[in-house]
């Protein structure tokens, strides 16, 4: 078992090196900060840190950057849960149930579940990466444009599932989200669509702005209009956090399934980082006994996307390291940084860089575990913020919201989009219509359209007859039948 030997020696090499462990300890809070600050995110974190790692020995630099990048989403869930403002795009899915939990006064519980799920997801993601090392090439190579399209169709189906009892309302909102995803340049003809002559709209709607508008703005308006009282009903205790953490154990199979789903989805270049979290959220609703309670504060709605967010980083590392092709936009910048550090990603790394690869895998595991400890210390004081008087809380939350939007897309038009979608969010909240289907449509519409265009141009409808496509079609039909069966039964 030479593999096991290399793996263990890499682990001992890492934990017995005060220098490398020190770097991980420094990287973890930095990564969590970049994640927690809306609009900053992991990509910008790497860009900002590149000059600092320049000149470092290659393994040390790579360990530092990877450890930082690995825990971005652990930090990102903080603002998502507490204020309904996503730190990064993939954290947006956590808002749907995480923020209602905070409003109910269960911020500690939601944060506990989020941090345990993030840690668990990160570790499982790294383990899946290790296990898939020998077989990932055929998996990645079997996921063409046709298969990516079918994965997005599976995701779009979740619109119906996420709508709960309000199927028609959910479908209307989902279709509105899909329509909004078509704003911008037509990928096939290069023509402008719904851009109203504005260059700003050529790249479509910004996801972070959309989520802040739909979910956070209505909450802030409620905070501002409620002159007295507290944001949350009761205060926070450490036992709430621990309770939340233990709930991940109660839902261990869900966490395991979403962790594996996240890692595999992360491995597929072109699917986009936001997709994994939403797909796994949809899966949590689909597999729940009480799907109608999602959106009002179900703990599974926090566990599933948080697990997926961290596990997908392990998956995304595979094509980045061994094909030199990044699995996500964050990994694309990581790839550039690795090259700068003198690491040449490619298939040869599996033969001559095993020690480095295992060191990176263990760095991923350790960073995720250390982040749990950091988060545990931070969660307490942060959760008490929600118990502040509304009049104290509203101004900084508004500032955070606007800063998040502008950091994500620094144009004045962003504020206009924020207001428009905020108005939509208010109306939907007032009508008690589900808001998550809009984001699913927005996240998946563009990828679905481009991949269908590509697949159809290359193979015609024949792409549906490929082996992996047939499996995915089977999954789509099974999901649909399962959904209809459950709907008629209830």
């Amino acid at each position, binding site marked *: 078992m030479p593999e096991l030997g290399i793996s263990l020696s890499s682990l001992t090499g890492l934990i017995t090196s005060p220098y490398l462990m020190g770097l991980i300890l420094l990287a973890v809070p930095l990564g969590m900060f970049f994640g927690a600050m809306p609009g900053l995110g992991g990509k910008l974190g790497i860009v900002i840190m590149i000059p600092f790692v320049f000149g470092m020995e290659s393994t040390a630099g790579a360990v530092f950057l990877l450890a930082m990048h690995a825990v971005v989403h652990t930090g990102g869930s903080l603002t998502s849960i507490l204020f309904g403002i996503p730190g990064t795009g993939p954290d947006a899915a956590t808002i749907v149930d995480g923020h209602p939990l905070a409003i109910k006064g269960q911020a500690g519980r939601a944060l506990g579940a989020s941090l345990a799920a993030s840690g668990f997801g990160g570790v499982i993601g790294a383990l899946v990466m290790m296990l898939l090392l020998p077989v990932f090439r055929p998996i990645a190579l*079997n996921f063409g444009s046709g298969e990516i399209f079918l994965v997005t169709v599976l995701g779009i189906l979740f619109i119906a599932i996420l709508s709960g009892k309000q199927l028609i309302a959910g479908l209307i909102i989902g279709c509105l989200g899909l329509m909004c995803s078509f704003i911008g340049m037509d*990928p096939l003809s290069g023509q402008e669509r719904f851009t109203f002559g504005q260059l700003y709209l050529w790249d479509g709607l910004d996801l972070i702005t959309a989520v802040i508008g739909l979910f956070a703005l209505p909450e802030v308006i409620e905070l501002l209009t409620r002159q007295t009282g507290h944001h949350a009903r009761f205060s926070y205790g450490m036992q709430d956090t621990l309770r939340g953490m233990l709930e991940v154990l109660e839902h261990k199979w869900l966490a395991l399934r979403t962790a594996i789903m996240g890692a595999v989805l992360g491995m597929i270049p072109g699917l986009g980082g936001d997709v994994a979290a939403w797909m796994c959220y949809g899966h949590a609703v689909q597999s729940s006994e009480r799907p109608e309670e999602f959106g009002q504060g179900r703990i599974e709605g926090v566990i599933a996307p948080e697990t997926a967010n961290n596990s997908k980083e392990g998956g995304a590392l595979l094509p980045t390291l061994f094909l030199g*092709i*990044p699995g996500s936009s964050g990994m694309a910048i990581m790839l550039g940084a690795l090259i*700068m550090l003198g690491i040449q990603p490619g298939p040869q790394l599996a033969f001559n860089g095993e020690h480095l690869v295992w060191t990176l895998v263990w760095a991923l595991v350790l960073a995720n575990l250390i982040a749990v400890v950091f988060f545990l210390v931070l969660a307490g004081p942060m959760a008490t913020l929600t118990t502040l008087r509304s009049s104290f809380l509203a101004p900084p939350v508004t500032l955070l919201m606007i800063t998040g939007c502008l950091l994500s897309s620094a*144009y004045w038009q962003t504020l206009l989009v924020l207001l428009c979608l905020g108005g939509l969010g208010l109306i939907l909240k007032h009508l008690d219509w589900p808001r998550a289907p809009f984001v699913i449509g927005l996240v998946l519409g563009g990828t679905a359209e481009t991949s269908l265009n590509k697949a159809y*141009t*290359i193979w015609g409808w024949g792409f549906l007859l490929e082996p992996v496509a047939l499996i995915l079609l089977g999954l789509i039909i099974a999901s649909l039948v399962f959904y209809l069966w459950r709907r008629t039964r209830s």
Partner: protein
Amino acid sequence: MNYSKTLGLLCSILFITHPLFANPDSARDFFKGKTITYIVATNAGGGYDSYARLIARYMEKQLPDTRIVIRNMPGAGHLIGTNWLYKAKPDGLTIGTFNTGLIYSQLSGRSGIQFDLNRFDWIGKAATDTRVMVSSRENIGNLQDLRTIDQPFLSASSGIGTASHVETTLLARTLGLNIKVIPGYGGNEGEMAVLRGELHGILGSYSSLRPFVENGNGQLLWSIGEVDSETTNLLHEPSVTKNQDARALLDLIQTTSTLSRLTAAPPNTPADRLTVLREAYLAALNSPELQKEARRMRLPIVPESGDVVAAKIKRALQPSESVLQLFATASSTSVAIRSTETALGEVGEKGKRITFDHGGKSISAKVSGSRSQVFINDQKADRADLATGMQCKIDYTAEGKAEVTTMHCQP
């Protein structure tokens, strides 16, 4: 000579010779204690951003007591940032970098452009990115293979209007290659698609595709310019250079490829400040420390000064009439073009439809009055002048209903 004429002459002389009076020393003082904003017309983290951040750090060393801050202005395929730079205050405190492919956008009259590249004050360029075509199909090793294959060779592009899309479409059309460009492969997705066999190849810069080839994932089919690897250089390929349209197009592509990672200031930047910026830019790029760092980051450095860039941009924006026509017809299509040399069979009423033989198959193709270009004895002609038996080189769209794009005939 009356008073107004004298004044006009004086003004003209002053205008023409004002760079000679420019005083870089006082201009150098102008930058002291000031902050220069370096616009990057795309997101943080990409190639443009890496170059800008690297150059900015070393330019600061050339301009003591001056700060250079990077401002990312992404969106609309570099148009937002470039439009903004064009309209920025021309005081030397705003400079910017954007995609060289905007030359093609300006040539094809793309909507959304609010600038004239000819009017920017160019500071310089940092690199040369020779174009190469990579193929993963073993049965395609040269140009001739691409002319004779039955199924189109599928090539990746990130989107309509991007440099790789325009260049591949136009090369295929001009050289009669059976290539179909599939848009929608951003970043490294194109390489991934080639790797899994979904697509057959990709046209891109040598520096970005080199690792892909070195990892054994494909082979170079051709290059447009010199590369340190054995492959056909289209600039010296006899079967290509005898085609006048192809020569003009290759000249444009090569000029564009030598203008990689441009940096410009808004039009009408004071000449003395422009001189200081150009000197600092070139000195930064020529410094051994920057070059060492760039080698490590795998960023090729081939610097040139702003005056050279301005001349090249001017040349690129004045292509031959044939190339301009190509741009007019290739703005949004991604249809595979087939090419054959044969005798015309039946010619329909007023030449609106022709039949001819291609590889043993009888093809019936439409000759459009507006889109198809007909040449007889190298002279532009009307489709009604076509006649049965003429020996013609015919380029036509192979999919759906066949339509002639260009035909050169001899009676």
